[in-house]
């Protein structure tokens, strides 16, 4: 078991190395000069050259990449003398556009994205799995029909449509949710303010996924209900309630745990559309802004983080599956 986890962690490290190297390579091939982007309109050649040396863009690409990797573990210092500054470990570089260490930008953006992802996940699991179970339980009757209408609507509406509709109607036209002065408030600081900011983004993200999960759950529950061991459970004299709760759901929801874990990981990498619509300063918006600005350190860091989350989540899901299903437990 431990050996398995260690192997998987080594694999994670390799993936991260490959992903970050790929991003570095792509940026090295792009026909622009990162040093020239550091000072905007008023760039003079001597300033560009000074910044180039200060940020290490004078070195070959492979050395830049090496400094990046080293920085993650030991931190990184830029410049010399009085102009020197340090990004402490784990350092993901320095954003010359934002004039901040990338790590501190990440620590600002990450809580926003986590809040968004966790809330959306809870809503879509509750709604999706709940509706799916009801639909399966009442297969062919009106609750099933109603849920398939929801599935159809939910899967056909892209987030940029639901997001904008919610924003325009709920927030602006009907003023059901007051505007917040800040774009992010922590749940610990003000639970109500937190809810005010996040409720619409959550719903936006949740609707599409909930629809898909309704369908997945319905299919999975129906398939499980047809299993021989469910007939055995009924033959024991168990009530339909116990048959559904104890015998069906655990088996039916196990495969969903895998999918949910991966979807959650993808969401943690940043929900670009939703964050942009609702002006949430999360990872997705940061990443898309960095791409527009050619802000290489941020792009690399967000890719690195997103890849890391996906791979680690994969591992967690696999370990979780072993807890749910004894057949996959490693002896």
């Amino acid at each position: 078991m431990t050996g398995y986890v260690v192997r998987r962690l080594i694999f994670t490290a390799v993936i991260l190395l490959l992903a970050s190297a790929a991003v570095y390579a792509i940026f090295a091939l792009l026909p622009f000069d990162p040093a020239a982007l550091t000072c905007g309109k008023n760039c003079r050649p001597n300033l560009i050259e000074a910044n180039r040396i200060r940020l290490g863009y004078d070195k070959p690409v492979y050395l830049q990449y090496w400094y990046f990797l080293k920085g993650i573990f030991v931190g990184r210092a830029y410049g010399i003398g009085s102009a020197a500054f340090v990004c402490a470990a784990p350092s993901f570089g320095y954003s010359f556009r934002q004039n901040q260490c990338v790590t501190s930008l990440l620590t600002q953006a990450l809580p926003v994205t986590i809040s968004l992802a966790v809330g959306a996940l809870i809503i879509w699991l509750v709604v999706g799995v709940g509706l799916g179970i009801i639909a399966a339980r009442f297969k062919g009757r009106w609750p099933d029909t109603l849920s398939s209408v929801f599935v159809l609507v939910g899967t056909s509406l892209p987030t940029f449509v639901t997001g904008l509709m919610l924003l325009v109607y709920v927030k602006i036209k009907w003023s059901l949710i007051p505007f917040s002065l800040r774009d992010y408030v922590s749940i610990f600081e003000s639970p109500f303010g937190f809810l005010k900011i996040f409720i619409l983004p959550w719903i936006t993200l949740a609707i599409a996924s909930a629809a898909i999960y309704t369908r997945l759950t319905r299919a999975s529950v129906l398939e499980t209900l047809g299993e021989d061991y469910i007939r055995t459970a009924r033959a024991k004299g168990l009530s339909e309630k116990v048959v559904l709760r104890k015998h069906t759901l655990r088996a039916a929801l196990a495969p969903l745990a895998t999918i949910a874990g991966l979807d959650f990981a993808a969401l943690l990498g940043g929900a670009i559309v939703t964050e942009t619509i609702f002006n949430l300063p999360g990872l997705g918006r940061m990443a898309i802004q960095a791409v527009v600005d050619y802000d290489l350190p941020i792009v690399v860091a967000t890719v690195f983080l997103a890849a890391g989350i996906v791979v680690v989540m994969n591992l967690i899901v696999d370990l979780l599956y072993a807890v749910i299903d004894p057949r996959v437990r490693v002896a």
Partner: protein
Amino acid sequence: MSHLLEIKNLQVAFPTHDGLVRAVSEVGFTLDRGELVAIVGESGSGKTVTSLSVMSLHNRRTAQISGQILVQTPGGIIDVVTAEEPVVRALRGKTVAMIFQDPMSSLHPYYTISNQLGEAYLIHNKASKKEANARAIEMLDLVGIPEPAKRAKDYPHQFSGGMRQRVMIAMALINNPDILIADEPTTALDVTVQAQILELLRKLQKEFSMGILLITHDLGVVAGIADRVNVMYAGRIVESGVVDEIYYRPLAPYTMALLASIPSIAAKGAGQLPAIPGQPPSMISQAPGCSFQPRCALTHLVPNGLCLRVMPDLTEDEPGHFARCHLDLATRTRAASEARANRIAGGRA
């Protein structure tokens, strides 16, 4: 004296997109304590549908069931067909228990054996989990699982097929049921394991003084352990009687054809095994006549095309021996003994 189980004129039909599937028609038989009654027939003949009806395990909303299934309980006789769901539920696993064809898939893969056995006990008994667990281990020991206390903590996938069927039997018998329905209990198992399981069933039947309803398509299994046999074809019982009568003096043409198609050691030579020509009829659009008529070797002996027009009744041709056929008894007996002679001589090679 009433029977443990008495089925009267059972009809089971399922509505489908293509029409009403009449899976079981006019089925009736009895089961007494200490008796082993077999239902024999090919796939789709209605054996399993009949047995699931006794447990009322069909979808109650869609299945159309009529007739009577009378089960004797300490509180009186209950008709499973008309009884309310809670009444039937109290019956399941307690008075009537069932083991299924495929022990590989009939146990829940996520729960330990002791959990699944204990659960069956706890439904019908006021007991603690610990007592249920002890009872589970006791049952595992009874069905011949070595080291039962240790194996009880294992999961189904850690058992072999034969062992799993033993576990299923232990689970079925944990509440001392009066009736055990064994639906093809040995079909999914190796031949050597089959024999062990059948022997175990016979042994436990004596210990628990149960009535066993054995569903099978394997005539060899039936010959070995059954007391009485009901042969089913296309949803109907076509012959019914004591096991020896059925084997040595079959009175329904279908049974004769079935017996003729058993491979015989006596039949030497590399001949072809006789098979019944044709296919069983559709259960949706049934023709008015005898459902076996298109495949029957004796139908040409019946005058006036009676077989095509009228479904023969199940009549008591000999004391305690029922068959469904228009042909006169003497001709049938002669055909049966000829077929038997042929079989022994290996003449139809």
